[in-house]
């Protein structure tokens, strides 16, 4: 993991920060040439080996340090059930569990996950037996297009374990981070309550 060790968080943040500014404002508008781009290029050119426990099995990939956990799951490990909605932590479509805690995979760098346990929607059912919340989503029509559904279920299944009250107020507070643009919100609440009763 020497590549990872050489990259300090500060250097990385500075690099991406400058790049972010370049696209939002554009150095040309500020009347000066683009700065720090060469060092930023160096930052993303190194690669690192990352090994995780993915849905109970070891998985590894050699990746550049600017790759998110989301992109690693989808592109390097070919598990596409976790969706990319906004890529900036605003929608919750990419919700996975990291060491048993729900997290937005798009806001998490893959190189920081070495040795961790990751659970995705593909790891929720036990063989052919759906998780009770997956079954409740089907029965309560708690999705329409289905694109946010992996994130809703990974979030909701954890809410069931977190002991959140299944009142409207409790569920809305706990599920506010998962946007459903088709707006199946009442059905999602009903599904979580159903699963809570049966679980």
């Amino acid at each position, binding site marked *: 993991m020497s590549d990872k060790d050489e990259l300090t968080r500060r250097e990385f943040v500075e690099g991406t920060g400058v*790049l972010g500014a370049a*696209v939002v404002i*554009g*150095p*040309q*508008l500020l009347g000066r040439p*683009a700065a720090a781009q*060469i060092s930023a*290029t160096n930052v*993303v*050119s190194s690669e690192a080996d990352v090994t995780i426990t993915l849905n109970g099995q070891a998985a590894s990939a050699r990746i*550049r340090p*600017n*790759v998110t956990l989301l*992109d690693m799951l*989808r*592109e390097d490990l070919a*598990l*596409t*059930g*976790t*969706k*990319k*909605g*906004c*890529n900036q932590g*605003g*929608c919750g*479509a990419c919700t996975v569990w990291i060491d048993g805690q729900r997290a937005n995979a798009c806001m998490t760098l893959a190189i920081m996950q070495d040795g961790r346990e990751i659970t*995705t*929607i*593909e790891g*929720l*059912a036990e063989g052919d037996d*759906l998780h009770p919340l997956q079954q409740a989503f*089907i*029965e*309560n*029509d708690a*999705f*329409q*297009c*289905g*694109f946010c*559904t*992996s994130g809703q279920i990974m979030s909701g299944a954890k809410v069931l374990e977190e002991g959140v009250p299944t009142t*409207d107020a409790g569920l*809305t507070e706990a*599920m*506010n981070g*998962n*946007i459903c*643009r*088709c*707006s*199946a*919100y*009442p*059905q999602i609440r*009903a599904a979580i309550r159903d699963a809570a009763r049966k679980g």
Partner: protein
Amino acid sequence: MTTLTDIKTGPNRVEGRAKVSGGAIYVNDTLRPNLAHVAFAGSAIASGRIRAIDTRAAEAAPGVIAVFTHETLPPLTEPGGMREPIVALHGDRIHYADQFIAAVVADTTAAAEAAARLITAEYDIDTPIATLDAAEATAFEPEQWNAFRTPTSSRGDADGAVASAPVQIDWTVETAMRQHNPIEANTTAAEWDGDRVTIWNADQYIVETMQIAARALGIPEENVTVLVDYVGGAYGCKVGPWPHTILTAHIARLVGRPVKMALSRRQMYSSAGHMPATRQRIRIGLSDDGRLQGIVHESLSQGPTHDPQYCEWAAMPSRYLYDCENVRTQHLVAPMHNGAPTTMRAPHEGVGLFALDTALDDVSYRLGIDPVELRLRNIPPRDQHFDIPWSTNAQAEVYHAGMEAFGWADRPAEAGTLRDGDELVGIGMASALRPNSKTNAEARASVDAEGRITVASATSEIGTGTPTALSIVAAEELGLPIERINVLMGDSTLPPAPYVAGSVTMASVGSAVLLAVRALKDELGRIAVAQGGSPLFGADAASVTFHGDVLIHSDDPSRRDTFASIAARAEGGAIFAMGRFAPEQTGSNSRSLGAQFVEVRVDPLIGRIRVSRMLGVFAVGRIISPKTARSQATGGMIWGIGEALMEKTDLDPRTARPVNASFLDNYVPVQGDVPEIDVIFLDDTDRDPNPLGSKSIGEVVSTGVAPAIANAIYHATGKRLNKLPVTSEMVLG
């Protein structure tokens, strides 16, 4: 009357298991050998020219395969017919902020996105037109779309009738620029095989994408296949190809390998359409007893400077919602420096009802007539715009059902009188309206030697439940469980289907499927009696009756045959039949109608507005799939909450750049914004020829919510608000 309070009524979605287990494949899940990834760099300015562009750093970045700019990309043939013409990467002219100025191809998504950020450009900057005020001076009258969507209309003497009416209101409202913001950004993948291309596109109209791609890429239509298993939300922003669709296919050919591209969330604010802002002035004259004497409804909607085709037809509801012999409407488009607008749930009527139904609400207080009673006094006896009869009109029933179910009788007439602790409580309503639309569609039905029954049409599943509803249509006609029906969609080589938009799919594709299944039964009977090996051989086809997938001779029940056996004996081991639906002109008209009833709670100290109760009553034809129809309704009503209280794309008035282009800054409804919702579907079978009797649902359910909420806020606070979205500062104090 069907009250669907129970979420679980009706069959589950047939694709449910795939969607809850991560197995449903969306375009961005496309994995191909040697796949490369495309990211577009966007313009920092909204109007001007690219003077110089520097791609050296991007080209040197890790994983980068190629970089294209307007100077290096071989130009495409402008195909015409697109909602946004292909101006990006074609010439140095910039028409809107974030217009693509370069395309980066790299080995991973992260590498493509990182390298795209390294592209820099110098510009000659023009001052952009960034507000409706600035654009109004160059407003123009748009071209008409069809017999109904016309820029102007006039019946009777509207201006004279308003001026001489004893009660008058002159009311101007503004509605915001909004984004569709599906959670799945618009996404395309493309792969060439010689001079044939497969395009995977998140798409509401794959047939049109196939046709336009063929024109732009210079190849025959039969060389283009457009595929999409599932679309991750659309709401209007995925109807056919956008420039990124065609450019992605073009780039795949240039780099000689399959490529994939997803717009960034920011690019969803410039490069895949938006609902344009409108400013509407409505003048209404009424008699003392609340009967409409005249309506003049004028609308100005935001357009782009580079493409004049889209208009938000906001004055439409004044033409055909209420009884009024004197109506004049006018639409103008005000060009601004933004990407092309497009239809967004719910267009036209959805926007125009905010003007019409808040004005009527205001008048009702002045007249001392209950708002629902005022509407009941103005139900049109016929379609006055086209001067033809209604085929069905359940408008009065809609209002009565809503009043009863919502407890309207307990509502105090006076505004500002209901209070619960620190919160002011208000109850309001408004009408919901969209045309009842259907159009040409084709479908194929087949059965194979294993008895598998398949219906197929080139429509796509955007979340509205089409595979489920088509399964129900076929299963009911055959008397079989829906599990026996296999639905094929999302492939442009299937029988052609229309756009999955404008609420046309059920009546159009559903009817085509029904006709195809009926034709399949006819075919099976005809073939069986002519098959040497069939127990029905030699029988009169008219004496064969169907019991599920078994054919039985009505005079001799021992003579029977099955779909599977008949198909097994047939050449090729399968039997096919086509269904073609084309709506007839009937000389009558009908609408998709409804009414929205809402209760709001306003905390005037902190300006918090909450919707605490909602009821939607809809007369939308026969309900085919209760569970998915109900979800359409609740989802659409929640969209109305977003329209009323949250959604607005803010353009910087100096630069015309969106300043809130993310879910972090531009809010859409989340769990905490949404109360429990009740839905009532009235019995309203479409009597115009349509074998299903269904009507348009998907959009009407979203209309009327914003005016109902604004009317409820007035009832709570006494503040009459004329801007969408309504925000906290408007109700403070």
